[in-house]
């Protein structure tokens, strides 16, 4: 599978950049014929992954770098969110619905990423950082793929 188009975005770990990341990915994704609900799902998934990098990965230190890569394939969209933050000790535990290490948060980030993408992969090394990779089928091809 060869990407038709690809962009890579790096930005500081500032909370305001969550909204930038979301809009940038949506603008890029619009090169595929996304439906509005698909675009909304992409935006939520990106928000959650980028938000996690900032809050959990970098513990709200604002001078770190979040890296976002978006690849367009004929079949859909791949979104990769990387931080070089503190990493996740137990990925399976972290991905459980309602699990959060922050009592103020809901533990729904991974739930949304999972619901709104067709494949979710989380790689993490404690002390080194976390990479979240999501693939989402888009358009007629997406509908077909989901039906199968």
């Amino acid at each position, binding site marked *: 599978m060869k990407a038709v188009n690809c962009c890579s975005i790096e930005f500081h770990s500032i*909370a305001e950049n*969550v*909204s930038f990341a979301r809009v940038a990915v949506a603008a890029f994704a619009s090169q595929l014929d996304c439906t509005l609900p698909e675009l909304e799902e992409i935006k939520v998934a990106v928000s959650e992954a980028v938000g996690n990098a900032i809050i959990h990965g970098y513990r709200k230190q604002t001078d770190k770098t979040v890296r976002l890569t978006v690849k367009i394939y004929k079949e859909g969209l791949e979104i990769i969110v990387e931080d070089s933050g503190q990493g996740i000790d137990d990925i399976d535990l972290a991905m459980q619905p309602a699990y959060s290490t922050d009592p103020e948060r809901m533990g*729904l980030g991974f739930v949304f990423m999972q619901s709104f993408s067709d494949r979710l992969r989380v790689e993490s090394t404690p002390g080194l950082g976390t990479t979240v990779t999501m693939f989402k089928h888009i358009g007629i091809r997406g509908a077909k793929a989901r039906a199968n």
Partner: protein
Amino acid sequence: MLAGDADRYRTKMDALLVRLSGDLDLGVADKLRITLDEHLNTKKIKYLIMNLSRVTFVDSSGLGVILGRYKKLTPFGGKVILVGAQPQVKRILELSGLMQIMESYLDEANALAKIV
């Protein structure tokens, strides 16, 4: 956009009506939480009515602010009431389960009628 403009917050007896707008995400969550709590604390509010009709996006950071206020009010018999969420926002509220634990109405009049 989510600034605590006075006219976005209206108090009626022990109810606080707040009209939110824009995207409810990590970028605005802290500020929104603080502003809401200032109003809730100083005015002895029991019912928080959140008009979401001009909210264009919500993610789990935004939901966290709403759920946090719910947890704050319910121990004292209070409520959080949601009004007028747009379809995409409603969907996230439903997926998260918030829509199931909070009352929701189509418009402010209906929401106010329920509590006064």
